[in-house]
């Protein structure tokens, strides 16, 4: 094999602490290397052209590029080789940036380490074989998990693009957090007026199948051919018959059921449609509060239902959907604010969360749009907003900024003044973070036009005194302690990954960060992809996001799905395991260790043997290291290739 080595300067990124010319000179001495040079930017157009020219000029049949991480540019250079007529797997990359130049300043040591990494790459390349992808058919149907605004946007864009869409929503109606909001910043337009029609579009779109009150149970298969088991939770109402007329809710005598849609501000009926614009507009019975389900008494809803839809015996049902791609759009949930004992959250009824306040402001909320103190129903005059509750606070394990609380607090202070003209809002803040179109202007308006008093400092304590709440804090600009007599305290609670997000990540085989937010494929270049082919992200499941950003990501994820489905067939990755049937003794160890169930036992002339199911194998290599005979080999990472690298680096 004739190998060419290209050592990249990456501007000063590598050249700053590595002598690339010396690395290239050393590489010329390695077995198989017939050409070596240093190059300014290997990934740039002239850089890639230089590689192609060298391949042609020196008849190279293998290339080593020493530059950045393969996660960045391995696909780039593989394409370069293909353009030059070589097989894409006759290429090796030595990472001398993330593994060398960026982590050490000692030029001599860095240069030596770079030489060793290039030596390893060249040694492996000598053992590489051309590999070829196979094409396979895909199921051009997409599943969206989560029916918030990001999921709705992704579903509509995919459906408008002609795809069949399956939308799975955990609760009984789509709409997500946005459906709970009264108004949206910075335009102060009505949230349900913006979202409602889009929800209706979902319901009416011929290409969208909506499974509400359902959860993902199990995900099998691979990109292009996923098989998803969905649990349709028992609603105890036959939704095919239910018309959403609401008579059952009017007549239901059990009025103490939990009301998650209204953030538990009040209680609701045991049979319930969460809000007037719900899609689908179907009733669900809460078995914990339904008298019929608890004590076999009552049964009023069944008597009054004009369409005889009530079915107390309904069971959960598992259905299977086959799709080619999945978009996770599971959104966020609120941080458990009660850990801040000093704010009295969960202890004093007049300390509420921002989302509870949003329900209070909403005309379809429990107080029909009137701001009333939960304790006595009085209209508050002094409203104190405390920002960064569960954001930017290492002590509660939430060091990140939730991004949208500054804005919604400004909005809520404006709405407070709109609702109660003689009220006064106070906002305790750490910093105001309002980078967005018309965002900072909006926060200024809250202060200048609506007279919200912004106090820069943290609150140390909220305690009741008579029927007031005393909010004690610091004003760091004045360098003084302040106390405000509040009638109502609103905590701007931060966002965290949605409950159950990590379980879903495990089912989808995607990674998540320390806080449960899903990891994107690349923070800059693959914001809506994941490291699992065919699984995409949209919205706040990837990190806290406001509505415009969530919608943009919904569309972006849809675009990714549409472009994937625009191909006739998908190409398989040939970096998978193969079994050398002569060596295999049929012990079955590989079958039991494979995490993907990609190896099956076959009968070969009366002998048990292992066989890899190509489409399911993810190329993790666990079987390779398990096999006592060395009969299972992972292509492109065979024992011989790995040992060649080891021998190259252990020369002394």
């Amino acid at each position, binding site marked *: 094999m004739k190998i060419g080595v290209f050592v990249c300067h990456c501007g000063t990124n590598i050249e700053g602490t590595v002598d690339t010319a010396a690395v290239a000179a050393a590489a010329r001495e390695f077995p198989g290397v017939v050409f070596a040079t240093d190059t300014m930017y290997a990934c740039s157009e002239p850089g890639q052209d230089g590689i192609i020219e060298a391949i042609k000029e020196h008849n190279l049949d293998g290339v080593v590029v020493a530059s950045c991480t393969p996660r960045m540019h391995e696909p780039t250079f593989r394409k370069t080789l293909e353009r030059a007529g070589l097989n894409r797997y006759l290429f090796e990359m030595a990472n001398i940036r993330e593994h060398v130049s960026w982590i050490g300043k000692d030029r001599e040591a860095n240069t030596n380490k770079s030489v060793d990494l290039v030596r390893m790459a060249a040694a492996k390349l000598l053992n590489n074989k051309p590999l070829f992808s196979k094409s396979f058919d895909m199921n051009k149907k997409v599943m969206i998990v989560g029916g918030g605004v990001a999921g709705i946007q992704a579903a509509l864009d995919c459906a408008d693009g002609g795809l069949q869409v399956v939308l799975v929503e955990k609760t009984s109606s789509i709409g997500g957090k946005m459906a709970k909001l009264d108004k949206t910043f910075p335009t102060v337009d009505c949230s349900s007026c913006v979202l409602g029609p889009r929800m209706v579009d979902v319901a009416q779109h011929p290409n969208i199948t909506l499974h509400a009150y359902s959860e993902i149970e199990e995900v099998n298969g691979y990109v292009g051919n996923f098989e998803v088991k969905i649990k349709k939770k028992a609603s105890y109402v036959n939704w095919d018959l239910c018309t959403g007329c609401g008579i059952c809710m009017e007549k239901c005598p059990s009025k103490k059921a939990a009301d998650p849609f209204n953030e538990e501000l009040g209680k609701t009926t045991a049979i319930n449609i969460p809000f007037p614009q719900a899609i689908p507009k179907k009733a669900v019975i809460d078995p914990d509060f339904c008298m019929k389900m608890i004590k076999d008494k009552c049964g009023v809803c069944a008597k009054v239902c004009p369409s005889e839809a009530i079915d107390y015996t309904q069971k959960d049902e598992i259905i299977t959907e086959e799709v080619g791609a999945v978009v996770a759009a599971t959104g966020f949930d609120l941080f458990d604010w009660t850990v801040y004992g000093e704010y009295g959250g969960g202890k004093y009824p007049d300390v509420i969360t921002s989302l509870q306040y949003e329900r209070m402001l909403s005309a379809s909320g429990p107080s029909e749009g009137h701001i009333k103190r939960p304790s006595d129903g009085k209209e508050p005059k002094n409203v104190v907003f405390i920002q960064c509750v569960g954001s930017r606070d290492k002590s509660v394990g939430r060091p990140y900024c939730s991004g949208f609380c500054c804005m919604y607090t400004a909005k809520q202070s404006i709405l407070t003044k709109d609702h109660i003209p003689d009220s006064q809002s106070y906002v305790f803040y750490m910093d105001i973070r309002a980078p967005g179109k018309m965002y900072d202007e909006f926060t200024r308006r809250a202060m200048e036009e609506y007279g919200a008093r912004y106090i820069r400092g943290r609150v140390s304590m909220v305690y009741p*005194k008579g029927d007031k709440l005393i909010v004690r804090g610091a004003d760091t600009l004045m360098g003084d302690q302040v106390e405000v007599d509040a009638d109502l305290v609103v905590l701007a609670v931060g966002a965290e990954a949605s409950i159950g997000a990590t379980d879903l990540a495990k089912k989808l085989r995607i990674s998540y960060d320390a806080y449960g937010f899903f990891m994107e494929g690349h923070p800059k270049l693959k914001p809506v992809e994941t490291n699992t082919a065919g699984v995409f992200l949209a919205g706040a499941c990837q990190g806290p996001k406001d509505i415009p950003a969530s919608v943009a990501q919904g569309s972006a994820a849809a675009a990714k799905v549409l472009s994937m489905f625009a191909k006739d067939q998908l190409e398989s990755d040939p970096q998978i395991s193969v079994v050398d049937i002569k060596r295999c003794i049929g012990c079955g160890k590989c079958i039991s260790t494979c995490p993907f169930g990609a190896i099956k036992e076959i009968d070969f002339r009366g002998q048990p043997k292992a066989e890899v199911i190509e489409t399911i194998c993810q190329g993790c290599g666990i079987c390779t290291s398990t096999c006592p005979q060395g009969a299972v080999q992972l292509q492109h990472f065979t024992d011989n290739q790995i040992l060649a690298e080891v021998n190259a680096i252990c020369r002394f």
Partner: protein
Amino acid sequence: MSDSLKFAYYPGCSGTGTSMEYDMSTRAVCRELGITLTDIPDWSCCGSTPAHTVDHTLSCALSARNLQLVENMKMDTAITPCPSCLTNLKTAERRMKDDDMRDKANKLLDNPYKGGVTTKSVLQILVEDLGLDALKNKTVRPLKGLKVAAYYGCIMNRPPEVMNFDDPEHPMAMDNIMTALGATVLPFPLKVECCGASFGIPRKDVVMNLSGKLLDAADDLGVDALVTACPLCQMNLDLRQSQINSATDAKHNIPIFYYTQLMGLALGMNEKELGMNKLCVSPRKAINAIGSENK
């Protein structure tokens, strides 16, 4: 069960002086409840505030000396009524797990401390080891009609990772004890706020302000008395109450009990052995309220 509760007992310096009534009532109550207290022989000061503000190693050694004496007693748990002593003992307990600190502190000690002694407050073992049911069963004179609020002070539960007991912002141990004894307990919003602590010496105005707020809040609630668990808190609120009245133009007249004193009354002991005569603000009005069903 409560029959087999045995602990090493660390009275602390205040217990032998300014908070004698706390020590007396603690011992009396424990005796009544069948909790055996064995004084740590030759115990010495925990270091209190001065030591840890000047030298962490010295502070650690002063407390560790006492832990080592408990080790000698072949006991594993020491209890103390005073939260300030407890903080020092617990901090030493933690710091002595660090090899460097242990070497440095042990150099200052005659007998090195090896580790393995746990310290708790008397309050904690009453709630956790004895239990409220046992307390209820032994109550012979329920505190019916007595309206109290529990004031914990700032260090009984904080910092939470050191003290490891109850809720750092809304502790309930004393509230629950008082409820078990039959008293009417009003939720005290400032239950963990600082009283001013040692500032009584260099900056009396700080104590006047902070303790004044506490007494204001207690009066707003309309309580007959406050119950405390900390000698310094009790002193600031009780001994200095008349000073606070002068400084803040108030007319507070709130008895400040140690919770153990009221426990003693409920267990049927006499006022003398509970040191009621050592309180500055007369407890008479509160004691008379017991049993008056005027609610």
